C-alpha cells in the first residue's frame, strides 16, 4: 500500500477519449509528483517548438503524493508550456481541487488535443465524460461554477474553470479553482481556452492510504506542532499575506507606479489593518490547512459596500494597488475580484496596466486608442476600462492581451523601458533593485519573473546564511543562496507544498511525511538531489525551446533606472552586476558559461540515461 493512487488519467480532447495509465514506478521514484511529474512528462511528450495554443500542447493538473491527506497545507499545480513566456510553466493552486483529483483515483490528469465545441470534463468516481459547455461558455468564473453545480445537481463537486479571458486566450488568463484560489500565472487559462475546455469538474471518494499509517500520523502531528510554534505562520493566520505590505514598503521593495518607486505613500490604505477595518469577517483555509491565510468578508461602507471579497493577498494588493497608485483597498478589492471573474491573473494585469499608463503618459498610446479616456495612476476607472478591454480583446485590449513584452515590441518607440517582465512574465511585487539576490532569482526563475522559485529577500534583509550575516548589497554569494533555494523549493513542489506552510514545516518533517506516505526512504540530502534533478530537467526543456543565457536577464527598469529616493536611493542591478552573479550561479549549478548543464552534472543527477516516457 502507498499514498500513490497508482494511475494517471490521459484525456485526448481531439477524440474525446480518456485512458487510465498505471503510474510508472521510475517516474514516481525520480520525480515524486507535482512539478516533478510535470517536468518529466512535458519534456518527453511535448514536441520542441510547439505552439502553446495549439492542440498538441499538454495541460496537466498535478497533485502530489501527500495531497489529500491530513499532512497540512498541500496543493496542486498546473503544468504546461506557457503562451506568455514560451517556457515551461508550473502554476500552483490551493482550494480543494487537487485533493479531489486524488479522491478520483489519480496521481494526475494529462490533457491533450482540443474539443471541437466548448466543453467541460466531468470526472465522477472513475467515469470520465466530455460534456457540452454551451451553457457556461461566456460566463465569468463565479457564474460558471454556479451553472455547472446546478447542471450536475451537486454543490460539493470541485471545479477548475476559465473565465472570458481564458476563452479569448489572453496570454495571462488564469484557471480559477473556486474561490479566490487560482493557477494564476503564466497563462494556463489561455491554454485551457485553446482546448475549448471551460472547466474540469471532479467528484470522488477513493481513500488515500499512506504506506505506514501510524508513522504517517505521527509525522502529521509533528508538522502541526511546527506550524503551531512558528511566529511567521502565526502572522499568516492573523494578518494573511498583506502583512508584507508594511515590510515591503519599509524596505523599498513595494512596486509603486509601475515600479518607478519602491515605497508608496498610500501603503497604509492597503495593508492588513486597512483590510481588517474595511471588510474581513472570518478566516478561510484551503483543504487540510491549519494556517488559514484567507480572510473573507463583506465591504462595510462606501461605493463598494456589500461586495463579498476574500483577502487581497500581498501580490495583487501591490500589483493592482501601489503599482497602479491606488490607495483604497476597497477599490483594489473590487478590481482584483473583477480579475478573478474575468479570469485574468491579477499580478500580470497590474503589470500590464502600469505599462499601459506609462506608455500613455509618454505618448506611445494615445487617447484615440482609449476612446478618449486619459490613462492615469491612482484611477480605478483606468484599470477597470483596461481589464474589460483586455478580457474581450477589444481595441487597445487586444494589444495588451499578449502581456507587456509583446505589447512593448508591437508599440516600439522605446516602450520596452516601461515593460517590467522577465522572459515575458510580468514581475511579481518585489522590486529587486536594492536586493540583488532577488534580482538573480527573478532572472533565473524557470517560468520567468517569479518570486516563488527562490526568495532570497528573507536572507538579504537581515538574515543569515550558513551562520553568517548576509550583506544585502553584495553580489558575491547570492548565486549559492538562489540555487539552493530553487532546488529545495522544487523538491517541495513535488508534494505539492504550500509556500507559506514551508516557512514552518522543517525539511526533515517533509522527508518523514514523504517516506511514511510512499514507503520509500527520504533524507534531506536526497530531497535536495530531487530538487536539483527537477530544476535541471526544466532547464533542459527551456534550452530546447531556444532560451539562452541572454534570456536570464532583468528589465531595463531594474538595470538602468535606479531607485529614485529613500534609504536605498540610487541602487539598481546593472547588467554587469547581473553577469557577475550569473557566472557564480552557473558555476554553483555545474552549468557551463552559457547556462547549459554539463554532461557530468546530468550524469550525477541521473538525467543522462533517464528512460523517456512514451
Amino acid at each position: 500500500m502507498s499514498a500513490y493512487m497508482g494511475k494517471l488519467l490521459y484525456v485526448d480532447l481531439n477524440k474525446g477519449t480518456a485512458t487510465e495509465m498505471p503510474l510508472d514506478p521510475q517516474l514516481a521514484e525520480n520525480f515524486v509528483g507535482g512539478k516533478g511529474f510535470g517536468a518529466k512528462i512535458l519534456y518527453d511528450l511535448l514536441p520542441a517548438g510547439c505552439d502553446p495554443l495549439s492542440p498538441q500542447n499538454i495541460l496537466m493538473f498535478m497533485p502530489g503524493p501527500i495531497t489529500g491527506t491530513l499532512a497540512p497545507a498541500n496543493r496542486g499545480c498546473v503544468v504546461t508550456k506557457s503562451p506568455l513566456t514560451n517556457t515551461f510553466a508550473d502554476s500552483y493552486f490551493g482550494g480543494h481541487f487537487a485533493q479531489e483529483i486524488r479522491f478520483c483515483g489519480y496521481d494526475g490528469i494529462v490533457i491533450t488535443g482540443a474539443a471541437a465545441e466548448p466543453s467541460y470534463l466531468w470526472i465522477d468516481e472513475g467515469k470520465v465524460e466530455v460534456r457540452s459547455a454551451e451553457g457556461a461558455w461566456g460566463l465569468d468564473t463565479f457564474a460558471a461554477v454556479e451553472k455547472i453545480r446546478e447542471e450536475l445537481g451537486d454543490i460539493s463537486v470541485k471545479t477548475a474553470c476559465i473565465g472570458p479571458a481564458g476563452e479569448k486566450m489572453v496570454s495571462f488568463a488564469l484557471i480559477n479553482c473556486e474561490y479566490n484560489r487560482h493557477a494564476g500565472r503564466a497563462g494556463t487559462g489561455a491554454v485551457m481556452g485553446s482546448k475549448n475546455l471551460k472547466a474540469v469538474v471532479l467528484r470522488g471518494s477513493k481513500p488515500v492510504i499512506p504506506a505506514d499509517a501510524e508513522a504517517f500520523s505521527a509525522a502529521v502531528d509533528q508538522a502541526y506542532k511546527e506550524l503551531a510554534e512558528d511566529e511567521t505562520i502565526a502572522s499568516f493566520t492573523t494578518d494573511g499575506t498583506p502583512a508584507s505590505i508594511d515590510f515591503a514598503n519599509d524596505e523599498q521593495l513595494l512596486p509603486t507606479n509601475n515600479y518607478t518607486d519602491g515605497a508608496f505613500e498610500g501603503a497604509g490604505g492597503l495593508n492588513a489593518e486597512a483590510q481588517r477595518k474595511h471588510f474581513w469577517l472570518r478566516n478561510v483555509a484551503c483543504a487540510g490547512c491549519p494556517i488559514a491565510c484567507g480572510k473573507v468578508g463583506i465591504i462595510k461602507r462606501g461605493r463598494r459596500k456589500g461586495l463579498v471579497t476574500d483577502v487581497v493577498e500581498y501580490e495583487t494588493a501591490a500589483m493592482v494597488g501601489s503599482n497602479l497608485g491606488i490607495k483604497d483597498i476597497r477599490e483594489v478589492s473590487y478590481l482584483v475580484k473583477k480579475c478573478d471573474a474575468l479570469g485574468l491573473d491579477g499580478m500580470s494585469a497590474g503589470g500590464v496596466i502600469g505599462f499601459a499608463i506609462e506608455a500613455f503618459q509618454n505618448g506611445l498610446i494615445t487617447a484615440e486608442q482609449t476612446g478618449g479616456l486619459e490613462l492615469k495612476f491612482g484611477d480605478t476607472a483606468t484599470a477597470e476600462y483596461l481589464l474589460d478591454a483586455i478580457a474581450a480583446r477589444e481595441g487597445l485590449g487586444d494589444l495588451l492581451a499578449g502581456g507587456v513584452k509583446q505589447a512593448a515590441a508591437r508599440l516600439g518607440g522605446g516602450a520596452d523601458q516601461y515593460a517590467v517582465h522577465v522572459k515575458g512574465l510580468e514581475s511579481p511585487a518585489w522590486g529587486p533593485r536594492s536586493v540583488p539576490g532577488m534580482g538573480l532569482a527573478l532572472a533565473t526563475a524557470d517560468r520567468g519573473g517569479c518570486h516563488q522559485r527562490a526568495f532570497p529577500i528573507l536572507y538579504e534583509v537581515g538574515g543569515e546564511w550558513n551562520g553568517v550575516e548576509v550583506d544585502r548589497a553584495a553580489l558575491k554569494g547570492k548565486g549559492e543562496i538562489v540555487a539552493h533555494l530553487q532546488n529545495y523549493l522544487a523538491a517541495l513542489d513535488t508534494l505539492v507544498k504550500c509556500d507559506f506552510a514551508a516557512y514552518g514545516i522543517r525539511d526533515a518533517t517533509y522527508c518523514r511525511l514523504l517516506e511514511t506516505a510512499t514507503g520509500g526512504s527520504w533524507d534531506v540530502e536526497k530531497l535536495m538531489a530531487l530538487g536539483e534533478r527537477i530544476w535541471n530537467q526544466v532547464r533542459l526543456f527551456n534550452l530546447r525551446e531556444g532560451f539562452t543565457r541572454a534570456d536570464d536577464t532583468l528589465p531595463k527598469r531594474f538595470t538602468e533606472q535606479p531607485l529614485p529616493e529613500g534609504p536605498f536611493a540610487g541602487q539598481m542591478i546593472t547588467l554587469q552586476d547581473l553577469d557577475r552573479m550569473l557566472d557564480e550561479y552557473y558555476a554553483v549549478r555545474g552549468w557551463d558559461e552559457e547556462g547549459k548543464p554539463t554532461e557530468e552534472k546530468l550524469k550525477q543527477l541521473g538525467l543522462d540515461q533517464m528512460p523517456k516516457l512514451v
Partner: protein
Amino acid sequence: MIYLRGEFDLCTGCGACQLACSNRAAGGYSPRLARLKVFSENENLVNRPLVCTQCENPFCMNSCPFDAISKSDLTGVVLVDKETCTGCGNCVTACPDNMIQLDSGGKADKCDMCEGEPLCVKYCVPQALKLVEKREAGEVASK
C-alpha cells in the same frame, strides 16, 4: 452526555476534521467517507460544519427494525451494532442530516464520538468544532 457542535463563524472550511475522521472510519483519507460534512456557501463566507448531534430522540435508532442502534445511557452517544445491522438502510433514509450511511461492508455507519476523544475536534485548529458535555438538563458546558 457528550455531543459535537459546529460553529459556522469559526470554521475555515479546511476539512481537516473530515480527513481525520475518514482515516479512522474508512482506513484512508477521503472527506466523502467521513462521518461529518462541511458545506461552504457564498464564496466561502460561510462554512457550515454538519455533525451528528447524538439526538435525544434519534430517528436513526427509532427507525431500525432490528434494534441494531442504541443510545448509551452513560454518554448519550448513538451507536450501531454492526453484528446486528442488516444493512436495510432505514436509518439512512430516516436521518434528515444524512449523518448515517452504509459503509463499504454495507453496514450502517455513523459518528461514534471516537470513544470520547473525537479526532475531528483534535485537528480543528480554529476550534469551530466543540465537544460539548451536558451534565444535567439545562446545564451545558463547552469543553
